[in-house]
């Protein structure tokens, strides 16, 4: 073009934030949980997370290369979303899982759940959760006994609770671990990244400060899940804290349920989504005696198109058109 002028549509200035920068922020927010998981469960934990990440990135490259996209272009457009998926898959399995499980989980998550549907932003359900569910269902036979973290309970007594400590809660009995132990994840069995809630909360605060997530929605989810458990347990207030501090609720609320692609697009839609998610999580926990955060999120993911179809923002000034015009003054 004449004078080498660049032509494009307005606006000509944009925010610095891109999909890639958002995903990198999420990766940064997951680092504390990864570090704590490594401290608690040893180098094998770090290996599992690393394998999950490598497999996820490899899966994305492999798929795009098969689709005949040049290598350089893939690298230029790489948005780190598969790194996030890989980290989440690695963090939501335990050290009792065989070394090959995160690889299969990540490949399934990235290739089947994400890339086959059209890549970032086109997936119907959250890839990380789908990958986790895939591992959970497929490799149950290979999983050994849950291991306790290297650091014992702050109160000196190590209680062998179940993997997620929710079984006790749903039966109406408070687990023997103190709330502080559950917050720190000390003396408690569990998945690599789900154990230390404090590290997850730190990541959540970082994301909220960077305005990647709206802090209200995870809070709604956690509060509703806790309250519903309390109500199911016969209004036993003592159940509230164990309910929210056990299992994968915190990691699910902060990192998984808030995934942009699989949440509604409106504020009201999000409120409905997270309330329903909280209720569903608590009810499923009660009904199945299992950790159900990931399955609850998977189920609610499927309702998002429905919510988005019916909850639409009304244009500015729309209401006035329906009401009488005498309201103007």
């Amino acid at each position, binding site marked *: 073009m004449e004078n080498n002028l*660049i032509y494009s*549509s*307005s606006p000509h200035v*944009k925010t610095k934030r*891109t*999909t890639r920068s958002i995903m990198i922020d999420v990766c940064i927010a997951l680092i504390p949980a990864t570090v704590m998981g490594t401290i608690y469960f040893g180098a094998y934990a770090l290996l599992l997370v690393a394998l999950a990440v490598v497999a996820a990135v490899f899966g994305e490259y492999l798929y795009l290369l098969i689709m005949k996209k040049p290598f350089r272009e893939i690298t230029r457009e790489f948005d780190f979303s598969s790194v996030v998926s890989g980290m989440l898959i690695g963090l939501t399995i335990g050290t009792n899982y065989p070394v090959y499980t995160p690889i299969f989980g990540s490949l399934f998550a990235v290739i089947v759940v994400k890339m086959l549907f059209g890549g970032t932003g086109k997936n119907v359900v959250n890839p990380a959760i789908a990958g986790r569910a895939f591992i959970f269902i497929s490799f149950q036979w290979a999983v050994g006994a849950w291991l306790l973290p290297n650091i014992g309970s702050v109160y000196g007594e190590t209680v062998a609770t179940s993997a997620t400590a929710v079984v006790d809660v749903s039966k109406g009995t408070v687990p023997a671990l103190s709330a502080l132990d559950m917050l720190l994840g000390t003396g408690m069995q569990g998945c690599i990244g789900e154990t230390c809630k404090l590290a997850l909360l730190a990541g959540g605060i970082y994301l909220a400060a960077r305005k990647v997530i709206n802090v209200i929605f995870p809070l709604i989810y956690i509060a509703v899940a806790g309250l519903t458990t309390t109500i199911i347990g016969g209004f036993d207030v003592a159940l509230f804290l164990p309910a929210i501090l056990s299992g994968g609720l915190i990691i699910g609320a902060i990192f998984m349920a808030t995934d942009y692609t699989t949440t509604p697009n409106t504020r009201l839609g999000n409120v409905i989504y997270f309330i329903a998610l909280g209720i569903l999580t608590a009810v499923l926990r009660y009904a199945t005696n299992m950790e159900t955060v990931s399955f609850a999120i998977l189920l609610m993911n499927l309702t998002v198109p429905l919510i988005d179809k019916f909850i639409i923002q009304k244009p500015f*000034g729309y209401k006035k058109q329906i009401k009488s015009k005498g309201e103007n003054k």
Partner: protein
Amino acid sequence: MSVIKPRFFPYGTKIHGTKLTQDCPTETMPEPSKVYISVSQHIGAPAIPVVNIGDKVKKGTLIAEASGAISANVYSSVSGTVSDICDIVNGLNQKQKHIVIENDFSGEQEFLPPLSDFEPQTLVDRIRLAGIVGLGGAGFPTAAKLTPKTQLDTLIINGAECEPYLTCDYRLMMERTQEIYKGIKYVARALKVSRIIIGIELNKPLAIKAFSEFSDLSVVALKKQYPMGSEKHLIYVCTGRKVPTGKMPFDVGCCVQNIKTVLAAFNAIENNAPLTEAYITVSGHGVKNPKNLKVALGTPFSELIEFCGGRTENANKIVAGGPMMGKALVNLNQYVRKTDSGLLCLNKTETSLDAPSNCINCGLCARKCPMRLMPMYIESFALAGNFKEAERYGAMNCVECGLCAYNCPARRALVQSISMAKAKIKEMKNGK
């Protein structure tokens, strides 16, 4: 009168914008040797040339006459000889008739006849005669706006200047306060309204101070929240009235006028001068000395850039208007029009040239949209060619403020798709 707080408006957003020329006084640029005056500098029918090639004209001579109610007169901005009347494809890729005038630098000037009285109808006629249009950018003939079917009760002056970079309105508010004030009074008189509100953004404290001296104006200190300069939003934060979908400001008894429009009205009424000049901010990091300029209509953009020290090496994007709503130029055959308020030379670090990627459904565009639309749906329907559905999602309400695309992390060209959808919907309706 004291400064009033605006009504709370939860949408829109702060945009980090630089105002490079906030402290540069308005300079008058010397007349160029040749001006290219378009006959279509407004919304509506193009004006019809009334001069022939070879005619001698003075500054202020009528060269093209309005053709109909929604049209505006065009006056010569220099004295000299008409050397050509031709079609030029301008920088916005529109083919327009331009009248080319060779400047003889004699400085001769022609004035409109003095006014006999200051009755509202006389004032409206004078504004129509002087060829004044909405100088905020839309270019709607002001006289048509001043003759509403129903009696209005509020005149709102738009001093928001919410676009980054642009500062010419701000400078005028400081330098020409008295004249603008008188212009406002004339416009209010023409409209027969007594309630006058002037909305100024909080980042212009000196302008707010200057206008809070007048007892018959209410100054609303607008939050620094784009797009406060949008007509419908300005009316809402100043008066609490919502302009219903598909209706115009006069339906809620308001008339919004731009700072430069009232200044032009003052010049036409008190100085008998038609509209022959534009106030324009030349800015951006791609130009060496950013300036606020008063220029003759029809001055080539290339001369404006030269006057400001020229372009830097990598300044490859030239924008007519502000960075949010302005149009990028495809060539430099662009000449100052009445409605121009900015000329930006942006270098590569200022503009975003990222390729669009998949929408990640973050919903930021819908959360930021001041019209409460859902740009992601409108875009996907527009790209799929389903314009009926795009219309159902309110595409026609879009004010093209650019906030959706500004915030989009996937860098999608939302404004482009939505304006395409708007054009197609209009076509569909006209076809029926």
